């Protein structure tokens, strides 16, 4: 990185530490744009002690996640905590554009200096979302936010990765989102630390609640290995629109946080699992992202799509031969790069 780029990184780093909103916003853009400047920034600001508590809030579209985030934020602010919010929405796979509308329900806090709200689009299809939003929460943490609320739509693998990176994962269900069996099939039940049945004012809330509690009981029996002080996910009924049940929800989140922090052994274990997962996400993102860019793999996808359409080969053989070529030949110039960055020392850490 050039001296002036490094200077810009240092400047933004100090602005983030001072919770300067413009500087923080700029740093978040660097991260979203997957730039080396963004990584250099995170390298300077990374906190292994992990002081912020991250709450992932996920659930089907329109289930009331943003309304819940808004109400949780109000209560956290009343306690004097500073709250960072990341709201992730999908990008259009066709145009790459996105409409990010979660702020509409969070207007109460948009001018509060101790609240920072950022909307993120999921962008590229080849990974990146989980890495970008985890990195973004690290930046908010460095800016001194005590709580970080991450909202994502609960569909798709990378969205689940986002919330699983949280300390407490809240799963929002609504009566109209189908029964709990479907939810379990989607594989999202295991990830939940706290379950919310929102829109309890609508018909079917009690039925859904019964189903969820049955599911939880079942998985409790299957996993009954005699671990003392096991966390049992509670179910909270809410009508977020009227702020009903939000106090109890926050209390459940508090209890989960206390549970995590009570046992230093468990805390270490949970943390190390998270760091390992974090490394995997980062590796995948850097490897895939780097290769996609260097070998213009998006271009390869376009070309190869046409080839397959013309009947010239199957995806299996074509991907196999590409990967074999990448692995055997290596990336042109990659070794030179490695040597160069070794020579340049620590400030060049990626």
């Amino acid at each position, binding site marked *: *990185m*050039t001296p*002036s*780029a490094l200077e*810009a*990184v240092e400047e*933004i780093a100090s602005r983030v530490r001072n919770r300067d*909103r*413009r500087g923080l*916003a*700029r740093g*978040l*853009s*660097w991260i*979203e*744009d*997957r*730039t*080396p*400047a*963004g990584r*250099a920034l995170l390298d300077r600001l990374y906190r292994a002690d992990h002081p912020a508590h991250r709450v992932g809030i996920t659930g089907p579209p329109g289930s009331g996640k943003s309304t819940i985030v808004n109400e949780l934020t109000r209560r956290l602010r009343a306690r004097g905590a500073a709250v960072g919010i990341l709201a992730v929405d999908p*990008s*259009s796979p066709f*145009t*790459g*554009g*996105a*409409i*990010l*509308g979660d*702020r*509409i329900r969070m*207007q109460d806090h*948009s*001018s509060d200096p101790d609240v*920072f*709200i*950022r*909307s993120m*689009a999921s*962008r*590229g299809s080849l990974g*990146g979302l989980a890495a970008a939003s985890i990195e973004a929460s690290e930046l908010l943490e460095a800016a001194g936010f005590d709580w970080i609320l991450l909202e994502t739509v609960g569909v798709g693998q990378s969205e689940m990765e986002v919330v699983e990176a949280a300390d407490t994962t809240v799963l929002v269900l609504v009566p109209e989102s189908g029964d709990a069996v479907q939810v379990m099939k989607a594989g999202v039940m295991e990830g939940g630390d706290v379950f919310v049945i929102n829109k309890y004012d609508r018909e079917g809330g009690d039925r859904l609640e019964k189903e969820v509690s049955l599911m939880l009981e079942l998985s409790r029996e299957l996993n009954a290995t005699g671990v003392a002080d096991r966390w049992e996910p509670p179910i909270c009924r809410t009508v977020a629109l009227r702020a009903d049940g939000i106090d109890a929800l926050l209390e459940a989140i508090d209890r989960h946080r206390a549970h995590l922090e009570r046992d230093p052994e468990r805390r270490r274990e949970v943390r190390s699992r998270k760091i390992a997962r974090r490394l995997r996400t980062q590796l995948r993102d850097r490897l895939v992202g780097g290769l996609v*860019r*260097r070998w213009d793999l*998006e271009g390869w996808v376009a070309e190869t799509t046409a080839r397959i359409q013309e009947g010239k080969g199957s995806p299996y053989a074509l991907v196999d031969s590409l990967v074999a070529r990448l692995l055997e030949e290596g990336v042109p*110039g990659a070794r*030179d*790069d490695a040597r160069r960055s070794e020579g340049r020392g620590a400030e060049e850490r990626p």
Partner: protein
Amino acid sequence: MTQDEKIRILVAKPGLDGHDRGAKVIATAFRDAGFEVIYTGLHQTPEMIVDAAIQEDVDVVSLSILSGAHMTLFQRVLDLLRERGGEEIHVIGGGIIPEEDAAKLREMGVGEIFGPGTPTGAPIEYIRRRFETGRGQSQQGTEEAAKEGDAT
């Protein structure tokens, strides 16, 4: 512009009138053009608009105005942006604005005004041209860095 970069636009509807159809139409058109649109809904005060624009690090603020209070609203948004370090954020507008007011607004620093009946393609073209060489305000860190990353 690198492939990971996206133009980000805040579409806001200040004022008291209750229609956001126009704003929704333009938000959808922007999305279809590949932009990331932050949509904040109805009844936005200039303070709320500028707070959102700063936090979201947008390149463009697009105001849809019907209420007739456009002169003061635009002025206030421009002033607040300047006050809060967002002076390089580009402001454009649409709605029923007489041409002589539009001329004044351009003098004040508003990029362009798109009157009623303007095809949605016009603001899209305008924005694309303006950001051809990259996102104006995050350039410093990203452009150099991106060059470095891609150069090998």
